[in-house]
């Protein structure tokens, strides 16, 4: 009789164990799947799902499968607080990560902070400056001083040229990121002894950039720093070619030139433009796992209306999940304090290279690359999948070629 009882108890325990193992780990987030940032948000989601599938194939985290609970924030900040309170209090997720972009990250901060959750975040620019939350970790490699680090490479490169360029024009869109980039550029230009001859902003809805480029041309600057969003970046590059801008360096902080569709659209007009980037398929940046990840991404992205190559955001969306997963595995727990400690104290191996977090949860050292477009052929998307078209010219540690200078004679 005793034996029967013991075996029943054992069976129950085993069953409970099995049931426990079957209970998945829930990771919650909001993502911009519609609205202005939908293209990027959908790409990020594909990358995150690849990570989830990779992890689940290997047996999950702590022996439990990983499950996502996510809602579309429609790129509207007002939707974010209800979503995160639902995730934490109704869905009772075990872990949270952020949506994409500063505007969608910050509204979640007070809620995440109240429940003391670790908050890995995706491409927020100085989003933690006010909150100073010690469990916030941001994956975009803008570095501890994002505003300055964003354009430092551009001006350092210019300063290294001989003869050293003297004058600079700074032009930026009247919106969040571009203004931050321009402010940093201004500071860097002054620090490195350039004379600013043009410094203006334009409204975000501008479509004709020819007058702006003409006005810049009239001041005759040696280098031109542009802080712009995807549609304006296209307009700016086209206008620079139409007007025949005679600067020695052109580019800097143009968002959009990292996207495959825009690269294909602009084609040879991009040649010699020097612009920021975070990852390009150059041999110096061939981190373990990144090629395999991109192959999966490019397969999954087909027909989804997202960036077909996925060099800009997706690897980082994969990486921030990767670090979170590693933290859970290494600490063998879902204890937020332990996970945060792991984030803080370790250097993390990811598909975007080694990541170490520093002040305010930003990368301890910046890895804003300056890449130069070279030998770009018209109407060819495939050329951007391999090396040689976007040569890393800054910083030294990741350099894959020397800059061609000047931009246009």
């Amino acid at each position: 009789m005793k034996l029967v009882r013991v075996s029943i108890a054992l069976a129950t325990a085993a069953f409970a164990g099995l049931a426990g193992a079957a209970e998945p780990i829930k990771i919650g987030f909001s993502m911009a799947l519609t609205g202005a940032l939908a293209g990027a948000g959908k790409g990020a989601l594909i990358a995150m799902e690849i990570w989830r599938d990779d992890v689940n194939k290997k047996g999950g985290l702590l022996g439990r499968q990983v499950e996502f609970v996510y809602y579309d924030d429609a790129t509207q900040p007002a939707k974010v607080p209800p979503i995160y309170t639902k995730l934490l209090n109704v869905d009772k997720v075990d872990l949270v990560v952020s949506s994409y972009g500063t505007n969608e990250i910050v509204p979640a901060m007070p809620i995440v902070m109240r429940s003391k959750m670790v908050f890995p975040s995706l491409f927020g620019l100085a989003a933690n400056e006010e909150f100073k939350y010690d469990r916030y970790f941001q994956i975009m490699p803008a570095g501890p001083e994002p505003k300055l680090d964003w354009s430092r490479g551009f001006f350092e490169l210019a300063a290294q040229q001989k003869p050293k360029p003297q004058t600079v024009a700074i032009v930026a869109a009247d919106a969040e990121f571009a203004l931050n980039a321009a402010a940093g550029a201004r500071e860097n230009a002054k620090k490195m002894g350039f004379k600013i001859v043009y410094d203006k902003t334009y409204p975000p809805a501008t479509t004709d950039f020819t007058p702006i480029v003409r006005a810049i041309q009239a001041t005759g600057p040696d280098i031109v720093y542009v802080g712009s969003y995807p549609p304006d970046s296209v307009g700016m590059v086209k206008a620079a070619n139409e007007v025949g801008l005679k600067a020695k360096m052109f580019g800097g902080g143009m968002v959009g030139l990292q996207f495959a569709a825009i690269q294909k659209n602009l084609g040879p007009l991009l040649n010699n433009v020097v612009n920021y980037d975070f990852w390009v398929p150059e041999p110096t940046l061939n981190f373990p796992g990144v090629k395999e990840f991109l192959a999966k991404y490019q397969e999954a992205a087909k027909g989804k209306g997202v960036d077909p190559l996925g060099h800009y955001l997706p690897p980082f969306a994969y990486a921030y999940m990767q670090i979170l997963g590693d933290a859970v595995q290494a600490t063998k727990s879902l204890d937020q304090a332990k996970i945060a400690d792991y984030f803080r104290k370790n250097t993390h191996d990811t598909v975007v290279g080694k990541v170490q977090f520093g002040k305010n949860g930003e990368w301890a050292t910046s890895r804003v690359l300056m890449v130069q477009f070279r030998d770009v052929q018209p109407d060819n998307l495939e050329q951007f999948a391999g090396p040689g078209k976007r040569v890393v010219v800054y910083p030294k540690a990741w350099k894959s070629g020397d800059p061609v200078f000047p931009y246009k004679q």
Partner: protein
Amino acid sequence: MRGWGFPAACAAVVVAGLAFTELADNPYYFNAAYVILQALIMAVAWNILGGFTGYVNFGSAAFFAVGAYTSIALLKAAAVPLPLLILAAALVCGLIGLGVGYLTLRLKGVYFAIATLAMGIVLETLINNWSYVGGAKGTAILTPDKHLWFDSYSEMLFMVMLLLALGSVAVSRTLSSSRLGRGLAAIRDDEVAAECSGVPTLRLKLVSTTVMGAMMGAAGAPYPYFVSYVDPLSAFNLFIAVNSIAMPMIGGTAHWAGPVVGALLVGSAQEVITVTISSELNVLLVGIMLVLFITLAPQGIVGLVRKHWKKRA
């Protein structure tokens, strides 16, 4: 007894709201309710000019945003308490409403609508270039640690929004059933005839633009505390304007209860759909409902119900 019905109902809602904050401890409900109540105030406010007076305003988001930015400007200067922020925002937006009323007094119909749209763009450009409140970069606002006797700040914001919503419904109800409301209805039906019959059309129009502006401003005032980060793009969001037009249209514009019914119905449906299906469907839902109601039931839900009752009577 009839005279006491509305105040009693309001008191019951306040008590129910307080009980809700005591009983429910799930912040999600408060945040979701906040969004619905915010939409309700916007809809009620829009209806005062759009429904009662017949002037379509596309610039609701601008009033809302100026309300939010009034709070931000004051908070940047000093630690102003929330009730004062709401008062100040209502005052500023009321004045802007008055100004808009004056400037556009000759404009009617579609021209008035275009003027309000333009006003939104002008105000957005102004905020974009005003670096004190963050300019185009936007600004982060930290929620205060104190929240009276409530368990959390979101509970308190919910209660504040509930009181504001009840206040705006009361104002709208009083307006619609008063002499002033009948004057507004006369303007809606035929402005020239109203003027000829001795209705002071300009004064009444100014009253309705001012009240509308003040309400929308009050709805926007607590917004910085709700989202913690405000930038012009999200504060001047077209969706706010579209919602505040669609909700009264669906609920019924002729009666004060129309926007309330519309906002509760559409707002709740949107919140549910966001967390069950997708946000993309929200916009589609609003669009489809708007088209259906405008073509099949131009008087809205309240109109349908009234027709039904009349038939039965």
